[in-house]
């Protein structure tokens, strides 16, 4: 059996060779860009690997957390939109905020009326009514405000704060969404939790696509400011390299912390909860609170990775978030790399991303030649949209990789490290 060390070395050298190939074939500018995107995906994968690998939480809503963090990061770091602040917009939004606060307070109060002796059945009814009333009041106040903002200032604009603060707040927002979702879905069986997380990520995407007053919707917001000098100042290779330096340090920082946490009492406790929830509770571990903690921490890291990824693309386009690229691709990285193994996950992310990027030209190349060959042999006419269809082949390959890995290498390329004390 190949020892762990040789597996790791093999994977590292394999990835290095692939990277070198890309640099040689497509040049440094493209190579560095690919590495930056891969590093962002590696960060996201780290967030997912601790949720699934450490604590056994099945999160299929990664796209929703990436989108939330990217949105908050855009909101915080995008330059201030003077048109908005001078318009009546802020005042109207203030009113909406007020309605919301009062409404939520009332709904909460209604939900506690059983303390005043209201029978439980009526309590839920009252809460629902007050909740619905709040919802109607808030939306009725929001619609005029939204249309006014869209008319006068196109959208709310940002707060012009530094980008790193944007990423941090984006991560916190994603963590917060993780907390809220954890509260709702923690009692569920894993596959129903998966459906709920899938639902939430679709809702986040729908919200961002339609709240034009906040996100300019399909008109997209750009250019998103970078934490480092942009290509216009330093040229493509250097600016991207500096961006890579930022994301690489983030990876190293999180890697060291998570590696340290794996063998620490915290990591041990999480793994115990994953292995046997009943026994962990009997040994004094508060299972639900700890899972909630992992939902927050995992999604915080996913959020930061997501914010970095979207900022790098300089465009905030809600429609660009796809479950395939932003949830299932990352699942392949984690499963193939090795769930619960931080190094395996990072290398898995790099490896899978490079293959994913390279598969685009490769697929096109293959299908073109295939089509011309078929044409020559038996005059088969390729359909017009052959190119887009060729790209769909990758979706098939991703699905195939998931099923094969689950069947033949469930532990992944670098399996979870068993903590041994010599």
């Amino acid at each position, binding site marked *: 059996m190949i020892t762990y060390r040789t597996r790791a070395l093999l994977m590292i050298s394999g990835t290095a060779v692939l990277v070198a190939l890309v640099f040689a074939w497509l040049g440094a500018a493209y190579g560095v860009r690919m590495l930056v995107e891969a590093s962002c995906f590696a960060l996201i994968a780290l967030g997912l690997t601790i949720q699934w690998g450490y604590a056994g939480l099945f999160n299929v809503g990664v796209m929703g957390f990436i989108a939330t963090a990217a949105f908050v990061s855009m909101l915080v770091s995008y330059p201030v939109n003077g048109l908005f602040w001078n318009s009546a917009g802020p005042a109207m939004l203030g009113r909406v905020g007020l309605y919301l606060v009062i409404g939520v307070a009332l709904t909460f109060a209604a939900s506690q009326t059983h303390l005043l002796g209201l029978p439980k059945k009526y309590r839920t009814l009252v809460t629902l009514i007050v909740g619905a009333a709040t919802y109607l009041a808030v939306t009725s106040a929001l619609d005029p405000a939204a249309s006014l903002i869209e008319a006068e200032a196109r959208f709310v604009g940002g707060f012009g704060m530094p980008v790193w603060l944007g990423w941090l707040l984006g991560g916190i927002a994603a963590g917060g969404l993780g907390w809220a979702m954890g509260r709702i879905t923690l009692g569920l069986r894993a596959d129903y939790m998966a459906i709920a997380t899938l639902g939430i990520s679709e809702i986040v995407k729908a919200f961002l696509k339609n709240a034009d007053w906040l996100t300019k919707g399909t008109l997209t917001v750009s250019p998103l400011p970078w934490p480092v000098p942009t290509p216009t100042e330093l040229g493509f290779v250097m600016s991207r390299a500096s961006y890579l330096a930022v994301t690489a340090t983030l990876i190293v920082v999180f890697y060291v912390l998570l590696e340290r946490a794996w063998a*620490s*009492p*915290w990591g*041990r406790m999480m793994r115990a909860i994953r292995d046997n929830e009943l*026994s*962990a*509770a*009997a040994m004094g*571990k508060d299972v639900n609170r700890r899972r909630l903690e992992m939902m927050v921490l995992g999604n915080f890291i996913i959020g930061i990775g997501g914010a970095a990824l979207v900022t790098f693309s300089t465009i905030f386009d809600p429609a660009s978030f796809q479950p395939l690229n932003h949830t299932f691709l990352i699942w392949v990285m984690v499963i193939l790399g090795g769930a619960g193994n931080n190094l395996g996950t990072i290398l898995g992310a790099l490896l899978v991303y490079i293959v994913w990027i390279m598969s685009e030209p490769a697929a096109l190349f293959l299908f073109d030649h295939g089509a011309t060959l078929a044409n020559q042999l038996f005059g088969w006419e390729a359909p017009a949209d052959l190119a887009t269809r060729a790209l769909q082949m990758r979706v098939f390959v991703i699905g195939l990789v998931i099923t094969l890995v689950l069947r033949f290498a469930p532990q992944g390329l670098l399996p979870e490290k068993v903590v*041994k004390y010599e």
Partner: protein
Amino acid sequence: MRAEVPTGTCAPLEHAAGTMTTIIDVQNVSKRFGNLLAVDGCSLKVEKGSITGLIGPNGAGKTTMFNMVAGAFAPTSGKILLDGKDVTGLPAHELFSRGLLRTFQIAQEFSNMTALENLMMVPANQSGENVVNAFFRRGRVMHEERGTRGQAEEVMQLLRLTHVKNERAGNLSGGQKKLLELGRVMMTEPRVVLLDEIAAGVNRTLLNDLAAAVERLNKEKGLTFFVIEHDMDLIARLCDPVIVMAAGSVMMQGPMEEIRRHEGVIEAYFGGGKVEKRA
């Protein structure tokens, strides 16, 4: 302290005037599942430093009672006190922090972690369990870890399991898993240990080791045990007093020799004595 009560009813045992020696005090507890009254107005006590046995024929409600004390589910009525404080209905992890440690009939090991880690995870409020400490206060955490590890290695030696300390717990034999689970008791200072059918699926020689370990912990460390068990010989060897439950409540309590001669108990076991109280 011995009291004899006629079968089937559950007269409250004389409460020794508030002695601080009672670790577990179950007061008039009942539990209903649908229209089946599994436990019916049952009271029992476990004294500090004792190894108290709980026996009874199937369907007598002893497993239900044991699980309520261990925090698996809350009673329908009545109160359970641990160290004099009311713990009725508290979840399992809460009871652990108050000093109640339970083992399982079928060993519940953490299968993907090594045997040593299975023990190291037991101590409560380890500073390293706080994620901030785990990340940033490495020094303090490492210092504490050395202590925990030393203690765990000691327990492994005591249980003669050192040779499998780095083995995945899932790969251990049935007997080794049972020993490992008992080892958890030595990783903390529990006020009381609940042993759930420790003899189930265990061969004779291993049973001797387990019984010897329990006796040693009780004698040297003064640990209190509350043992639910089918193996009458083990009960006879380990426990005094032994509480007999039948038809959902306590039927009698006393040393095993006397219970074995007690007509009512023999009839309860032999005749099945199953009187199910309809709602």
